[in-house]
Each structure stands twice: as structure tokens, then as C-alpha cells.
């Protein structure tokens, strides 16, 4: 085994906190969201007015959604206004053809087993950055906008309705909005699987302790293994 030669502080506390809050929120939102779409538990006993079973699921979904939104905005704020180079998305420049050049292609080739060596990055590799952008940034933005528009429907003419209500005619109807929110929600479990696999695999292949880095903040560089 190679010797540990360097440790790098990559994920500062705000990033780690964001990550775990986000992860917990996504799990809670997915579970409550699926339950709201399909309430499978048995009905409670007694009179309806005594019970708040289903309304609690919705309530939890809304509460967690607001934590999720706050956390998301906090992460954007941190990215834009901190001096944390690994948190700033600075290297992510998909509008420039250069970004899609050698590093990106190398990383894709490596994932497709077309290269022997594994490119290594301290922060996110270009493919990971793109995946985060699509699933986490775009996906969350979509879910937040559609979710807030539906939340606004609970109080027509209210603040949320005034700010986000324009999504209703954009999607055509309230039903379409619910449908889109439901379908797009599935990208999150999909992404969680891909993300976990990629992390575990990189940890095994690169031995950079990427898994524990999101708890401790440190990634490690290991000396290349020499033939004995």
C-alpha cells in the first residue's frame, strides 16, 4: 500500500453542512412526496376531525422544502461570496469549448474504461461538476419553482401565488405542474445511486478518501504503489 503523502482540506464546514442537510432533505422530500402522491397507509380510526394524518405528511413536506430551499440559497451565497476555491464552481465553464476539451474527455474515457489511468482532482472532476450542475442545480431549481407554484395554489392571490403563479399558465394547468414535479422528482433517487457509486468507486480506485472527505473535509493523496 502506498504511503499517505499529503492531506488537503477540500470541503470546508459550510460545504459539508450544506451537503448533509441537502441529503437529508432530499430523502425526506422524496419519501413524503411519494406518500402524498399515493397515501398507502391505512386510514385512522375515529372521526375525521380528530385526525391530521395526511395533512401532517403535507406539512412535513412543506417544512422540509423550505429548509431545502434555504440550504440551497445558502450554498449559492457561499459559492458567490466566499473565498473558498473548491466551493466557488470557478472551474465549471460549460459555455467555453475549452472546458469540454481534454480534461472532460479524459474523464469520460476513464469512466468508459478507454484509459488505464484515472485522472484525479482535488475538487470535482469535470464530469462530476456537470452532473452536479444538471441534477443538483437545475433539478433543485426546477423542483423549487414548481413546488412553490403549487404551494401558492393553497392561497390564491397570496404572496407565493403572486411570485410563482406564472408557472401555472406556463405549464398549461395545475395538473401538468403536479405531474412535472412528480416526474422530475425521480432524478434525485437516480442521482443518489450514481453519486454514491461514483464516490465509492473513486475511493477504491484512487484511494483519496473521498467518502470520508464529506465528513472530515480532508482528502488524501497516496504515494503511487511500486512493484515489490
Amino acid at each position, binding site marked *: 500500500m502506498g504511503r499517505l503523502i499529503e492531506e488537503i482540506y477540500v470541503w470546508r464546514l459550510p460545504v459539508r453542512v450544506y451537503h448533509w442537510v441537502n441529503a437529508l432533505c432530499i430523502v425526506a422530500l422524496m419519501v413524503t412526496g411519494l406518500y402524498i*402522491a*399515493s*397515501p398507502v397507509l391505512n386510514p385512522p380510526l375515529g372521526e375525521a376531525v380528530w385526525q391530521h*394524518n*395526511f395533512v401532517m405528511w403535507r406539512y412535513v413536506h412543506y417544512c422540509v422544502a423550505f429548509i431545502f430551499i434555504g440550504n440551497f440559497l445558502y450554498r449559492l451565497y457561499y459559492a458567490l461570496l466566499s473565498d473558498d476555491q473548491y466551493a466557488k464552481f470557478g472551474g465549471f465553464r460549460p459555455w467555453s469549448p475549452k472546458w469540454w476539451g481534454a480534461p472532460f474527455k479524459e474523464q469520460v474515457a476513464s469512466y468508459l474504461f478507454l484509459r488505464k489511468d484515472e485522472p484525479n482532482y482535488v475538487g470535482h472532476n469535470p464530469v462530476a461538476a456537470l452532473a452536479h450542475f444538471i441534477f443538483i442545480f437545475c433539478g433543485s431549481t426546477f423542483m423549487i419553482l414548481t413546488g412553490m407554484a403549487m404551494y401558492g395554489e393553497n392561497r390564491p392571490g397570496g404572496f407565493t401565488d403572486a411570485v410563482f403563479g406564472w408557472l401555472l*399558465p406556463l405549464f*398549461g394547468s395545475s395538473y401538468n405542474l403536479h405531474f412535472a414535479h412528480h416526474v422530475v*422528482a425521480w432524478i434525485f433517487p437516480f442521482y443518489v445511486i450514481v453519486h454514491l*457509486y461514483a464516490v465509492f*468507486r473513486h475511493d477504491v480506485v484512487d484511494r483519496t478518501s473521498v467518502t470520508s472527505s464529506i465528513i472530515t473535509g480532508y482528502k488524501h493523496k497516496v504515494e503511487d504503489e511500486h512493484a515489490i
Partner: protein
Amino acid sequence: MPAQQTFAEVFKSRGISRRDFLKFCSLTSVSLGLSPALLPKVIHAMENKPRTPVIWLHGLECTCCTESFIRSSHPVMADILFNMISLDYDDTLSAAAGHQLEDVRKKIMKEYNGKYILAVEGNVPTKDDGVYCMTGGDSFLNVLKETAAGAAAVVAWGACASFGCVQNADPNPTGAVPIDKIIKDKPIVKVPGCPPISEVMTGVITHVHTFGTLPELDRMGRPKAFYSTRIHDKCYRRAFYDAGMFVRGFDEESTRKGWCLYKMGCKGPTTYNSCSKIQWNEGTSFPIGSGHPCIGCSEPGFWDKGPFYTRLADVSFLGTDTTADQIGVVAVGAAAAGAAAHAAVTAVKKKQHDKESEK
């Protein structure tokens, strides 16, 4: 009948007492959601304003809007309403027919140019120059364009004229479009529903007549007074929804107990209409009241959001019986399978690599 009759005059000539007339006025202001202070204004308008001429066109439709309209709450009221809006042209209800009737339409268009209300029931097939709906020897497409040109405002009756309804459901063989795709330069009030509630229809007309303006519209062009909240928000079964007490089948105890129809595919939570407050047929009942889930008939494209008895629509482009959840589960399963396969290949490659480096 003189052309410029007021409502009060019509009432009088029909032998309806002043008391009934005032009752009608207050009922109308209540259904419009107006404050009691505005009641004198309604009465004043009904007594003094000449009746608004209305041309009522029928396009590609089933006439259920007219059927609903003529059942407006009170039997006497139904009769009154026929006369009060000065319905000068309606090819379904008129005694006259043929050239005689078409001449009336042309006359109104000329005499009241820019002043009449155009009410449209049904939508417009546009494919093949609109031959799929012919009225009075011309395509409905042309008739509508011609009649809309001189209208003060347009009322789109029902789901057809407002959003398209069954005629433009997939695959829409006649190229049917709602009227706002044809009439671009006139204010349009959409009164969706299949059919709309009769009191909503008469309420919209009374508003236009009383205030001389269109009612306040929401983002989708519907009158706020009737379409600002979802059926779900005022549903009398809402308590069962909040409690999590759902009907699970039509032959169950829960159905007899009248629990929430959410799991039976009720579209009440996504449907903007007044069914749960005004109800139908003199306030007798409404679909959910009769134990049937709302099918969302006043929402755009509701025919394509089927099936009616499940919460989640089929994703039509993937064939029938495929729901969003099935797609999601397949995608997540594929991700897991892909990850496993990738892991296997990684392991094999690593072994090869280790072997090579050992050599």
C-alpha cells in the same frame, strides 16, 4: 319586441312582479360575489341599461353548454335569462332557421357594430380550411372570424371554446383549436367546464351587463369570481382528505361513508371551478357529492390526463399503462444495474492491471 328594451321592461312584459325582479338582482349580486352595497347598482343597471345584444355561435361542440345554461337555477329564471341578454342569434335555440336567421346575425353585426357580445360555444377545426365544421354554408372558422370582427368582447363558453376539450384531445384529427387561437384582438372571457355551471354562465353575462366591463380575470383568462379556487379547497370531503381517510374502491365501506375520493383519481386538487360551492341543478349536488371523483373538466387538456380513476396520468408517448412512477423506478433500477456492471468491469480491469504490474 323593441331592440333597446331594458331588463326591467322584459320582466314586466313577462308578468313578473317587481318583488321577483329584486330577488333576481340580489341573487345575481350574491353569485357574483358583490358586496350588498352594490345591489342598487345592479338594480339600476337592470332597470335602465338597454339589454346587451348577444350573438351566440355554435362550433364544433356537443351543446352541453346550452343545456346547462337553460337550466339556470330557477325555472322562471331560465325563461327570464333567455330574454334578458337579448339573445339575438343562437342557431340552436332560435325558432327561425336558414337565411332568415343568418340575416339576423348580419343585421346585428351591422347595427351594433363594436357593441355586441359574441358568445362562442365549441371550438374551431382548422385542418383542411375548417371543412370539419360547417355552419350556414360556410366554415365555422370563417363565420367566427367574421362575427368576432365587430364584437365588443368575446365569451368562450365551456372547455371547448376555452381550452379545446375532447375535440382537440390527442390525436386531434380535425386540428381543432380553442377560440383564443383564432381571435387575437378582442378581450376573451373563458368560462371553462364541460359544461360550465349555469349560474356561472349567467353570472358572467350579468357582470358584463351591469358594469359594462368584463369581470376580473385570472392568469388563464377565467373570471376570478368563479375560478379563483380549486374544487378541493371548498370540498365538503376535505376533512377526510386531511385526516387521510380515502376511498379505496367503489364497492367499499369507505365509499358509503363518503370519504375523500383522492385515491380514486379525483382531480379536485388541480381543478379550478365553483362546483363545490355553487353546485349543480339548483344546488342539488355535484360529482363529488354523488360519490364520483372530479375529472377536472374545466382544466386545459383534461382528456389527455387520463385515466380518470388514478392519481397519476399515463405518460402517453410511452404507450398506455406507463406511469411516471414506473419510469422512475425503471430509471433508478437501471442506475443501480449500471453501477453494478461498472463496478464489475472496474474490478476485472483492476485485477488485470495488478496482474500486469506483477509481471
